[in-house]
């Protein structure tokens, strides 16, 4: 440390200053919540701890356990089948397995009530066949687990499939030579080796579960996120909602520690087969009974996570088409898209800036700030919203009392504040993906460019940018999808005159006009589906 201080004058550069400034700017919501914790609890805090807090903790824990178990089972089983076997229409099934990500979980929640609730589509079909069932009760915590699991399993599926696909056949051959059965191979070799992907995917699932507002609110399940909203809006106690947020942040960090502990020090890296031996990753062709069974396993998540919700939405969409399809809907779609596009562009730009400033800064200790700035993804949207409201309040108070200036109109009800909140929430999505790819590129290419007389920025545009094109594009689309689906943060911070497809669908459902929510929801799914398809096409073209 002494030496670093000794060389402060020599090694301090503009990048150091910029990384600290940018990171601090992006971390305002976190610091705001932390500072607020020292201002005492709110008026309703005692009431909340007496009547609600236990419920929030219990329900959130049950949700995490339930969705964890179900997404693990669905995600790993479908990943294994797709990675290890070939079968007819495999590409279509692979694409369909991802599609639940295109439907926000709160919209899936509405459709299930439409399918199997009182007078639901499925119940009516059963009646036509002479079976009399009034309804299947979905609007409880178990229904919520079902909905969230079938919406979110693709996170586990995606990470695990990539790892399963990378196993060389020698691994299986070695196990067979040692007399290991297929079952034992799966549970004691394949699954443990895939644990980084599984744990990473499940962590994302847990974060989405904790962030969910729309589905939990609709099903009447009290969770931390619904509690934060209720405390702030119905009980009008911002300070207590900040206390609740802080408890949730602590729970999230406990989850992070558990994930770190689960990953441990073991190495899961398999030596990748080189080009000559690539054909050694062999896949078995499915046939007979096994084929029916395995295809059945793949179709279950597609059916419950995508096809059934989509059918219900289409039925509702047709029923309400005349009244709902209008110029306003198109404008709403375009507004959502342009908000998503501009935010995604800004997020990818700032993520790149954070990554490269960290590289160019010689005081690596300061890079810890950039890590704090990327904590947004593990902090539920409601908390970020509350943090920003808190900061806005402090800012307006400061300007009002100290300078006699009213800046309320600039910080409240402003699209800039909403975009800033998205930035903090989603910068980690782009940051992690781009950083992973820069690590794969290594240092030598950019260092070669420096040695050949190029500066840092020119090197970025000449070398890194062309080689990171796919990663940048993927990050851009991922952030775009996340922004377009986002609900709690948008609900808290959106200006009065702005709406999104997600918010409009939620508002109709909240007004008990679930069928009318279908067209905005279908429009949203169409836009997200198009983005995913375009991304796939572009990535294949760039290859």
């Amino acid at each position, binding site marked *: 440390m002494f030496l670093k201080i000794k060389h402060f004058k020599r090694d301090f550069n503009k990048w150091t200053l910029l990384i600290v400034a940018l990171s601090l700017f992006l971390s305002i919501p976190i610091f705001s919540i932390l500072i607020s914790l020292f201002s005492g609890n709110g008026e309703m805090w005692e009431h909340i701890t007496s009547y609600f807090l236990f419920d929030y903790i219990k329900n959130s824990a049950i949700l995490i356990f339930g969705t964890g178990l179900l997404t693990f089972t669905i995600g790993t089983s479908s990943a294994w089948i797709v990675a290890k076997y070939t079968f007819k229409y495999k590409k279509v099934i692979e694409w369909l397995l991802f599609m639940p990500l295109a439907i926000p979980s709160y919209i899936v929640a509405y459709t299930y009530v439409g399918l199997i609730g009182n007078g639901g589509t499925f119940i009516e079909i059963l009646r036509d066949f002479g079976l009399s069932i009034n309804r299947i009760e979905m609007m409880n915590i178990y229904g919520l687990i079902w909905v969230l699991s079938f919406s979110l399993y693709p996170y586990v599926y995606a990470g695990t499939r990539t790892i399963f696909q990378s196993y060389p056949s020698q691994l299986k051959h070695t196990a067979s030579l040692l007399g290991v059965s297929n079952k034992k191979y799966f549970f004691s070799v394949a699954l443990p080796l895939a644990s980084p992907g599984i744990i990473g995917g499940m962590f994302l699932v847990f974060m989405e579960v904790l962030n969910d507002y729309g589905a939990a609110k609709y099903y009447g399940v009290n969770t931390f996120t619904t509690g934060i909203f209720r405390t702030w809006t119905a009980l009008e106690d911002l300070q207590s909602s900040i206390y609740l947020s802080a408890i949730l942040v602590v729970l999230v960090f406990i989850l992070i520690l558990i994930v770190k502990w689960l990953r441990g020090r073991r190495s899961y890296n398999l030596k990748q087969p080189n080009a000559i031996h690539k054909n050694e990753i062999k896949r078995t062709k499915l046939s007979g009974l096994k084929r029916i069974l395995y295809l059945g396993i793949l179709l279950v998540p597609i059916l419950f996570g995508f096809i059934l919700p989509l059918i219900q939405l289409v039925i509702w969409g047709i029923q309400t088409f005349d009244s709902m399809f209008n110029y306003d809907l198109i404008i709403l779609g375009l507004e959502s898209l342009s908000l998503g596009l501009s935010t995604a562009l800004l997020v990818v730009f700032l993520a790149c800036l954070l990554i490269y400033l960290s590289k160019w800064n010689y005081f690596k200790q300061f890079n810890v700030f950039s890590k704090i700035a990327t904590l947004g993804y593990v902090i539920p949207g409601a908390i970020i919203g509350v943090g920003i409201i808190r900061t806005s309040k402090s800012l307006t108070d400061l300007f009002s009392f100290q300078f006699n200036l009213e800046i309320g109109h600039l910080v409240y009800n402003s699209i800039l504040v909403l975009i800033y909140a998205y930035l903090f929430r989603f910068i980690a999505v782009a940051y992690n993906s781009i950083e992973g790819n820069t690590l794969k590129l290594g240092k030598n290419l950019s*260092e070669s460019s420096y040695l050949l007389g190029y500066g840092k920025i020119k090197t970025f545009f000449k070398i890194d940018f062309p080689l990171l094109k796919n990663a940048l594009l993927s990050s851009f689309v991922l952030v775009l999808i996340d922004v377009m689906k986002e609900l709690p943060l948008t609900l808290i911070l959106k200006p009065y005159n702005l709406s999104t497809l997600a918010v409009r669908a939620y508002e109709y459902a909240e007004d008990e006009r679930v069928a009318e929510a279908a067209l905005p929801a279908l429009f949203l799914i169409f836009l997200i589906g198009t983005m995913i398809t375009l991304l796939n096409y572009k990535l294949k073209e760039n290859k």
Partner: protein
Amino acid sequence: MKILEIENLSKSFESKFEVVSDCTFNIQAGNICAIVGESGSGKTTLFRLIAGLERPDKGTIRINGTLMSSDKFIRDIKDRNVGLVFQDFSLFPHLTVKENIEFGLNKNKDEKVEKLLEIIKMENFPNRYPNELSGGQQQRVSLARSLAMDPELLLLDEPFSSLDTQLKSKIRQELRDIIKKIGISSVFITHDIIDALEIADEIIFMDNGKIIRQCLIEDVFKEIKDEKIQNNMVELKKNAELILNALKKN
């Protein structure tokens, strides 16, 4: 005349352990110098310090008499006029052979690239991409890319480690011929003393971050006191014929 002057150079990372520890040595202009040491002896870090890719904790580096770094000053990498051929060659994968070589050039691009392609015997492959080249060809392109900048000092990081044994011997000779033809002062690092004996004019032995011996190639066998070098000598004696051939050149 000295092309490289290193004085009391040290570098440690987070662990506080000095990877390069109080190194002092000079290299004569026009020579090919080999820095020999085992893995972890600090030779790569020493190289990165010379190139400006790491920042020293203490000590000074001068190239051709110009101060490159000290406790108070550090010259930017792009202003050092040092060429570095990385162990993995680090060719830009999205650029062709020609585009790689001319990457750092501002004027007389075609003329210079043509000349260098001739020197590295790759006149017929200017439009190939790096993934379409063999290991030896990639190394030659990487060398040409560095030479295009007319550096005062050329650094080569383990230039033969990724080549197979048969190719190694051929490439060693080719590399020495190219360097001598251009007449550039060069330093390369290697863990294999045979590499050093075959192409270097002088050798620096490094161990645990310290310079333990520096000598001309013909003095390698004279009065060796260090146990590690003696052990290397036992290995060398097994390859007597190779050593003799190497010594004949000097």
